[in-house]
């Protein structure tokens, strides 16, 4: 069963940008693409825990600001020859609001 939590209005996330949701246990980056798709993942690069939320978003990936690893927003997996994966969370948009389910998505 999903447990949706309202986190932010879509318009409050910049296009090709992100916002950070802080929970008791971790930080979650919520990304918005140029086509208004929204993705959420743990705000830690699988490489050296860089804050992915601070990276440059392009297409459906984000480039980590620390060492330029490219992470797929949908799966949380590192792209290219790099290997690693970060947790992603289900997201939905309803009447302009973004909801996240904090249950960690099934590992891909």
């Amino acid at each position, binding site marked *: 069963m999903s447990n949706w*939590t309202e*986190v*932010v209005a879509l318009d*409050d*996330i*910049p*296009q*090709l*940008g992100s*916002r*950070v*949701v*802080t*929970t*008791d246990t971790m*930080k979650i980056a*919520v990304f918005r*693409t*140029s*086509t208004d798709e929204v993705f959420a993942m743990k705000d830690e690069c699988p490489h*050296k825990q*860089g*804050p992915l939320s*601070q*990276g*440059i*978003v*392009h*297409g459906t990936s984000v*480039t980590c*600001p*620390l*060492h*330029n690893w*490219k992470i797929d927003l949908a799966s949380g997996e590192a792209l*290219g*020859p790099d290997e690693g994966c970060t947790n992603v969370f289900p997201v939905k948009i309803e009447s302009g609001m973004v909801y996240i389910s*904090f249950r960690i998505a099934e590992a891909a």
Partner: protein
Amino acid sequence: MKEKLVLIGNGMAGVRALEELFKHNTSGESGSDLYDITVIGSEPHPNYNRIMLSPVLAGEKTINEIILNSTEWYEENNISLITGDAAKEISRVKKVIVTESGDEIPYDRLLIATGSNPFIIPVPGADREGVLGFRDIHDVDVMIDAARNYKKAVVIGGGLLGLEAANGLMKQGMYVTVVHLLDSLMERQLDKPASALLKASLEQRGMKFLMEAQTAEIVGDKRVTGVRFADGSEAEADLVVMAVGIRPNFELAQQSGIYCERGIVVNDTMQTYDPTIYAVGECVQHRNECYGLVAPLFEQAKVAANHLAQVGSTRYIGSMTSTKLKVTGIDLFSAGEFNEEEGDEVLQLQDVSSGVYKKLVLKDNVIKGTVMYGDTMDGTWYFSLMRDKTNIADFRKTILFGQHDLGDAGHGDKTSVMSLPDDAEICGCNGVSKGDIVQAISKNGIFTLEEVQAHTKASSSCGSCTGLVESILASTVGEGYTETPSKKPICKCTDCSHDEVIDAIKDHELKTMPAVREFLEWKTPDGCAACRPALNYYLMARWPEEYQDDAQSRFINERVHGNIQKDGTYSVVPRMFGGLVKPDELRAIADVCDKFDVPEMKVTGGQRIDLFGIKKEDLPAMWKDLTDAGFVSGHAYGKAMRTVKTCAGKTWCRFGTQNSTRLGVKLEELTWGSYMQHKFKLAVSGCPRNCAEATIKDFGVVCVDSGYELHVGGNGGIKVRVTDLLCKVETEEEVLEYCGAFTQKYREEAHYLERTAPWVERVGLSSIKEVVVDNAEERKALYERFKLSQKYAQIDPWKERADGAASHEFTPLKIAG
């Protein structure tokens, strides 16, 4: 329904074209979304790295190690692979290919990559057992087998391939004699002195040579027993390898009525005279040239693939090639026209006892060709100078001593990669050893610097080991090394180079990022982390009055005006003009540190105070306090004007001339806030003792009694570069004007992320002087444009954010649970 694409020739060029084609796949699945693909290969193997046959023969690699695409790769990409069966006929009317075994394979588009055949000299006895070319795995198998049972080998042909074959056979334990028609080895790649050095070194290893020997007959019964020459002399041989050259293999194409000359004739989009049929590789003749090295073939493959994928605007315009010999322990490099003609000039360095020889052929101070032996570290540098037609007048006196890119911070004094042990650290940033790089190259079938960077991370951080990595790449894959292409695209999103983008923005008045991407046919909808910051900068630099900065195209540091640290906190550096500071200001900084619990403070090399460990959400409040105390952003985080460093100055120093400290403040007031392609540092020293280290700055001023020396293009760091003297001026006003003009010229013309030092080296100091020093009108115009741009740049980003701008950046969303 997908169209049918058939590839004839399962070799490096053809398969590379398929790989390039798959990169255009938009469906997210493997293989091609446009074509059903069939590959016909006459050899019974999947695609392997033909260049690596020499190391296989020398016993340094196994066949398995040189397979580029495994059988699984063909399956994964839904390719029907036919091996061990050759195409016999192309029926262009029926659009069907008939194979030797009688199969009929229909096609809509056809790609011919049939490669080349070794040239077998038509002398009597050339068909005897034990006589072969050196072209494929089969040849290598036969040679290795022969080495087990026989002792004496003759290699006919003292070119690149012949010498590699001879070296391999020698490693397999045979006595090898190389027979060459001319009087010097590798005459197409080497001049006589280099050739003599090579011959001496191979002789030392036990190789024998018969020069100026014309083969007349291969003697023997069923099997070869020797070679007879035109002068009647003979050499014994149990094995004869003919390596006198290759011939494009275009028989099939020609029989099918496709126009051929010395090869299959293609246009700039790699199409034959039949537009449904493409051809790439050694079988091709393009603009009257046939290529036998792999780098050009890969360029052709890319162009053909773009066309097949229907995204093609790229054209193949021919290649400039360079050569390396893959004989372990021999460093040799050549490129271009290295035999001088009348009117050319020659620069030469020869050290016989240490076996070093370097020669550059120049015409009007542009490199036409180079030959190097013994020390080839600067081969790639000379090659790029040649390719870019750089005028070398400014550094002609020292060019033979190399680029000095070795001995940089982090790699000691390594001068020859061939002799380095496998555990030698090459990339000091990411801890990558020579062995790691060599292994990645062999294992993954890598040919380019970008691929090495992606797989090993070597040279992907500070980039100072790029020269070393390129050398390892070149010596590992030999002539297969894909040189940095003549035109280097900004990133994978485009085929355009930095210069093309800069020019298009100016010439076509492109004023937004979408406009640039549409006009230049970007391949991705919103670019990537490499091109977006570049485009954003170019637009801002060109249209300072109109362009709206795009925060999401800024690297995080410039987006939030602080320097991200490894734990995700930020550092803050308030600007102190000229490095001067007052007690009140120091007090304000101290108060801020107490208030925000700053864990560490540090004095920087640029005479500023750095506050570390600031949480992102605290930044605006901290900036408010600093702004109230009169500070503006120090831009220590940006590709921007950083600091003006000054010395004690004549107020106090007994040696000082001019008012250097005041000048430093004025320069910083002029330039602060300006964004650049890279960081940009200034310094003013009050006398030639140069305590402010002005001669390793992007723009440095050294005051002398009679005026001001202006120095440009220096930097400390990885690769220390001392400035070049731009000129000397007499007044402070002139210093400001020249500084603004130089800065603006850099801002308008350099490539994004290119500091002034490599920019000055690339375009040449003379070309900068022509405008900034010799042309008063242009200098004033540049200065005016700089000041105009500064009107929009000198708005303090800290104050804006302290006042609430971009607040979403700094406000986390808190959710319990």
